[in-house]
């Protein structure tokens, strides 16, 4: 006669698992790291000559120590920055005072007009990081919008949904053309 095995007492099981659960609840932090990715340029050689860049190919954005903005020497507002940057980088009507374009053969896209425009960003040592990120954010927004538009035209979907090779092609057609100058030292104590 086989004997019945007595049932395991599992009532403390939930206590144990509650204990573990509480532990992991306490020590876990859900990954929420977000931000803006940038690439720094390599350091310049000592006796580097200033590259000769035409005035029409530069859009100067300056932030002073009081977090005020200058676009090409005129007082500007952060709310206009995205549209100004888009107009500058896109130059849709091929105006003579906006950047030149060069024809470039890009894989998957064919011959493309790539803007020679560079946004030059200069801040003061007294500028707040908050404002700096706000400006970077607007410039990024301009680039993201332009990439999305091109991606819609060429591939019929959003830039973020593209496979890597197509995204790289778009990146080549619309590069992140932001150059940062040495900061001024007016706002430093």
């Amino acid at each position: 006669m086989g004997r019945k095995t007595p049932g395991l007492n599992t009532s403390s099981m939930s206590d144990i698992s509650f204990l573990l659960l509480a532990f992991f609840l306490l020590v876990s932090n859900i990954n929420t790291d977000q931000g803006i990715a940038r690439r720094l340029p390599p350091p310049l050689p000592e006796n580097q000559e200033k590259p000769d860049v035409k005035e029409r190919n530069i859009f100067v954005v300056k932030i002073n120590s009081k977090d005020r903005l200058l676009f090409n020497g005129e007082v500007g507002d952060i709310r206009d920055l995205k549209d100004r940057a888009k107009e500058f980088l896109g130059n849709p009507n091929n105006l003579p005072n906006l950047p030149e374009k060069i024809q470039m053969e890009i894989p998957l896209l064919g011959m493309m007009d790539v803007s020679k425009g560079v946004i030059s960003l200069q801040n003061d040592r007294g500028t707040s990081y908050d404002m700096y990120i706000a400006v970077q954010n607007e410039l990024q927004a301009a680039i993201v919008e332009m990439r999305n538009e091109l991606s819609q035209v060429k591939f019929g979907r959003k830039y973020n949904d593209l496979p890597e090779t197509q995204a790289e092609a778009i990146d080549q057609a619309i590069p992140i053309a932001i150059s940062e100058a040495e900061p001024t030292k007016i706002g430093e104590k």
Partner: protein
Amino acid sequence: MARFTGKKAKETPALNMGSMSDIIFMLLFFFMTITTMRESSLYVTIKVPKATETIKLQKKSLVSYINVGTPMAGEWQKKYGTESRIQLNDQISEVKDIPLFVEEEVSARVEADRPFVTFSIKADKDTKMGLVSDIKQELRNSGAFKIFYNAAHGERK
């Protein structure tokens, strides 16, 4: 009339607790998998700025953090003042300590991963750009070109 309705007083039936542990285990595994242990505690207060165009930081194992903010109230402020300071790993550091930090962080990775190490600048929004520029300059000179400005996703007011 108890004769017809049954003699016993009505009892509420016991809840079946059998599936309780299953549920708890499910939660447990969820939290176990998403957990990342915090490696070092912060000694500076950081409130990152808000931005709308943020992207998620990819490949956490290839990211090293540079924390910038004002030292925490109390002991830390007594020791390091109330100006923004840099925290690398577990200690408050100077800008000149960054090249060594970069070298340590890069050489801690396997050879194939070294070019992809990203330095995430996690700075308080009231930090002055002078300090951030100095950090960027040091990173540049130490050959760390991939950087990431930590920001919270959200509309600016």
